[in-house]
């Protein structure tokens, strides 16, 4: 491995460590009080002191997020296929979906609580509601952009719409679909944490809210760090999945350059 390649491999770690070093130094130099902005070492200490609650609650948040995300994948894929299937359905549903997507999902939490009570279910549903939209849009786009010539070639052979969907539409939509999963998974975290902090007794969102009430600022930040780590891990998982499933679409050297 030459030096540039090594540097690129190490660079994420260097930047992350660099951020924490600068942060620590800034807190130290400007004498920022811990209850305002705790230094990374204090956050690390909070990790040690509260390892039990952090582990328990981050596990709950992860579960909530993944269940909501799974619902979003199933529903988003289905709706995307339906919307991509027929132009009339597309035209009919598109404004509705955009309108729905424009609603801040935090505004829906009270309604969900009204229906399902506080706790697990509203959090799962918020994660689901916030993350299905990009999946629908991407799947529908993939289907809508089938080359008309290719459609003609197949139609002239007597292919049904379902044939074209199976042989061409769905395979060519996969890169769009897997690409959208990376966006959707991070949004799902946003959704579950929003709901947890407004209406739940569990989860990282709730833990941060309680820490705030008790003025345990390092613990709040520890909660943020946990969320960031979970987010990165899930994003990476989706990126690996994407590369595995749609290697043919990733042959360009553009993104690697």
């Amino acid at each position, binding site marked *: 491995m030459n030096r540039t390649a090594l540097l690129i491999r190490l660079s994420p770690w260097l930047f992350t460590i660099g951020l924490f070093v600068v942060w620590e130094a800034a807190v130290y130099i400007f004498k920022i009080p811990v209850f305002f902005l705790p230094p990374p070492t204090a956050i690390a200490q909070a990790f040690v002191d509260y390892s039990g609650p952090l582990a328990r609650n981050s596990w709950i948040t992860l579960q909530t997020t993944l269940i909501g995300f799974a619902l979003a994948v199933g529903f988003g894929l289905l709706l995307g296929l339906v919307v991509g299937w027929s132009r009339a359905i597309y035209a009919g549903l598109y404004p509705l979906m955009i309108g729905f997507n424009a609603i801040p999902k935090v505004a829906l939490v009270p309604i969900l609580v009204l229906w399902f009570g506080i706790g697990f279910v509203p959090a799962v549903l918020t994660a689901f509601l916030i993350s299905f939209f990009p999946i629908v849009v991407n799947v529908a786009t993939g289907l809508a952009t089938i080359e008309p010539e290719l459609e003609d070639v197949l139609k*002239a052979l007597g292919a049904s719409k379902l044939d074209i969907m199976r042989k061409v539409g769905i395979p060519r939509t996969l890169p769009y679909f897997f690409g959208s999963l990376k966006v959707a998974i991070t949004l799902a975290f946003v959704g579950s944490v929003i709901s947890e902090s407004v209406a739940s007794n569990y989860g990282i969102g709730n833990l941060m809210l309680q820490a705030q009430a008790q003025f345990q600022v390092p613990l709040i930040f520890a909660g943020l760090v946990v969320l960031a780590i979970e987010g990165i891990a899930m994003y990476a998982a989706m990126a690996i999945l994407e590369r595995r499933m749609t290697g043919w679409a990733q042959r360009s050297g553009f993104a690697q350059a």
Partner: protein
Amino acid sequence: MSAFVTLDGVDHAYAGAGSALAVEELSIAVEQGEFAAVVGPSGCGKSTLMKLATGLQFPRRGTVTVAGQKVTAPVKIAGMAFQAPTLLPWRTTLENLLLPLEIVEPHRSEMRRRKVEFAARARNLLTSVGLRDQGEKFPWELSGGMQQRTSLCRALIHEPQLLMLDEPFGALDAFTREELWCVIRDLQAARKITVILVTHDLREAVFLADRVFVMSSRPGRIVVERKIDLPRPRDLEVTFTPAFTDIVHELRGHIVKARQ
């Protein structure tokens, strides 16, 4: 005996185009085993003619008959190739070739049982267009000319009786294009299939076709029908003979007139 492909007094307009006709009073008859070329100014409805003859569009007025039957659905006995090769990037070249067999009956239901035989057929076809041992490559690993050869093979794999070519060589460089003229010339000679070639390249039309049809500008109509009686098999050298250039020149005159 009636012709293999007949369009009789056909008017057609696309949905959403209002009353603006794409073709008007279009009549053309192509015999079985004949190589017909359709030339004309751009936007004259050449591609509409293709869609009508394959049953992808149905005329507003007039009738279209293929193989003795009025066209009321996609004809299924046609293979098509376009200017863009439209290969599927997630399939290897060989798998791309097999695509029509997965769609069209009776091959479709026999796909599983005769897979090996079909693959062998596809490999033979690839060899016949000079793509021996390229079947395992993905389309994007092939050059433009090779992709277009693959696209031609895909149009022929189900042994259609009718081959429709819509400017299939338009995006290729001059040398590759002439190479492919010879490929298509040999394929047609060997299989005796009926070919309708839509093109704006007059040399291509005259070199390949038995008859050249000149279309007027939109709404399209056949204004001239020219029999090409250059002897077959034709060699590329024929394109440099005075007889050949005269025909090209004459057709060019018709097109200039058609554009006005």
